[in-house]
């Protein structure tokens, strides 16, 4: 797997509303090899504050060796990243981690994203469409403002999209998982990313019936498999841990201990 440590020029900064931003970066090396759910480690501040890089999934690819990151301000690192300007360079390490595996050749494919978990699913949709598969997309968020731009982007790709918001301001009033029971039983593969309780509900819904891959988040110091900081328990074993940056971030739903 080729990996790069590289300074990438920011070519677009979009404020999508609420605390959500999207950066478009010139990163030809990474763009050439990255696959959906792989992530990059980004330096957000000065060279030593915040000290550690922040992991972000690649949100999408664009012509000309460009990649996009979609993120939300949740702390110091993302707050600094939101101040990035066009023309500035950002240091990236990546692409890292294991990607979503391709769906089986037949059957419908469904993507279920909650909050910023939507980020890698857009790239996955791009990739599936290149392969002639049209995924059904279910997106959930707190409120309409977090979804409007993304709905449009998925529409432009040509994917059917169903929405839900907790406050009812767009689409179904409630949780995105409440849209699952309406899924056709032709769905053969489901990909999900979002808050853990959401993914847990999706995993439960899929059970043994539907192949389900999830993309997980943990705190990471290196993203390279070196620090062993990103451990999560292996189901049924008290003496073993996965390392999310290496074995993941994508796991089969059955490989994860759900709350």
């Amino acid at each position, binding site marked *: *797997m*080729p*990996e*790069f*440590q590289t300074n990438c020029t920011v070519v677009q900064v979009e404020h999508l509303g609420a605390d959500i931003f999207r950066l478009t970066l010139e990163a030809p090396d990474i763009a050439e090899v990255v696959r959906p759910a792989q992530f990059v480690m980004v*330096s957000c501040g000065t060279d*030593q*504050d*915040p*000290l*550690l*890089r922040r992991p972000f999934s690649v949100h999408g690819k664009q012509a000309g060796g460009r990649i996009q990151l979609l993120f939300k301000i949740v702390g110091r690192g993302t707050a600094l990243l939101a101040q990035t300007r066009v023309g500035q360079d950002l240091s990236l*390490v990546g692409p890292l981690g294991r990607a979503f595996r391709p769906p089986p050749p037949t059957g419908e494919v469904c993507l279920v994203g909650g909050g910023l978990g939507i980020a890698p699913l857009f790239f996955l949709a791009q990739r599936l469409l290149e392969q002639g598969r049209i995924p059904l997309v279910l997106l959930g968020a707190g409120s309409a403002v977090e979804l409007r731009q993304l709905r449009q982007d998925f529409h432009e790709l040509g994917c059917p999209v169903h929405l839900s918001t907790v406050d009812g301001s767009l689409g179904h009033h409630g949780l995105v998982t409440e849209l699952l029971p309406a899924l056709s039983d032709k769905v053969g593969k489901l990909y999900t990313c979002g808050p853990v309780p959401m993914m847990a509900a999706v995993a439960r819904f899929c059970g043994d019936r539907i192949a389900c891959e999830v993309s997980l988040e*943990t*705190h*990471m*110091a*290196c993203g*390279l*498999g*070196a*620090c*062993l*900081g*990103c*451990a*999560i*328990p292996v189901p049924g074993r*008290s*003496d*073993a*841990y996965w390392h999310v940056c290496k074995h993941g971030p994508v796991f089969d739903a059955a490989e994860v201990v759900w709350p």
Partner: protein
Amino acid sequence: MTIYNRADSPDLSVHIGALRLANPVMTASGTFGYGAEFAGLLDLSSLGAIIVKGISLAPRAGNPPPRIVETACGMLNAIGLENVGLERFLKEKMPYLRQCGTPVVVNILGDSVDEYALLATRLAGVEGVAALEVNISCPNVRMGGVAFGAEPQMAAAVVRAVKEQAGQPVIVKLSPNVTDIALMARAVEDAGADALSLINTLIGMAIDIHTRRPKLANRTGGLSGPAIKPIALRMVWQVAQAVSIPVIGIGGIATAEDALEFILAGASAVQVGTANFYNPRATQEVLDGISAYLRQHHEPSLQAIIGGLHG
């Protein structure tokens, strides 16, 4: 700027006891995995040595998560010495490391003096293992969990036992969580250590004020990174004056300037730790910068500036 030809290249080689390294830049244990993790981003053969994640006799699963937390210019870790254990290390990790051609230093850890001795025995004949680094910051299970590195007699006992069995030079890695690190250093030197490396992490803590729980499942963890550099440098300086065996500087080294501070303070070599996480090319940059400094100051060799602090 002056142009130097190859003949002007400063000599970066160093001797750590019987161990000869092409250059003084190594990777600190636990921050570089087993080497292969960085192969995509770095030319491993350019390193002075690779020090691998601490190895115990049996595999260890480590602590439950969360295991790491960022702090001001530093990080806390409570990995809990997760490692694949000696057998898997020799079978799965050494073959790759051997073919890199870079000297490999195996960091060893145990719960008892016997475990350390046994590790040294088993590693004695292993091809490609250039030296052992003994991590004495581990708790002594027999003696009520006090760290070997907190008590000169206990540290000396470990070192003597390892030296008796070891087939390679023995570097002893000191803990900074002590009142008098020079005392520890002398105890370990007297017990036969070939070299010293310091510092290991300082014990620290962080609390989530909203959940009111420690941010690490283990409650406390080891502080590393640029934050600790001034403490590490002071300790290296003290120890370099207190002993006559070579000293290896560790603690917050991220740039060539950092490394040169340690070398001027008396370190014969350095280890880059936490910096590998946020700058995977840190070791290479440190090495290039040391070369550039020696040229700029018209120094023929690294050797010429070790301990070169005035005043």
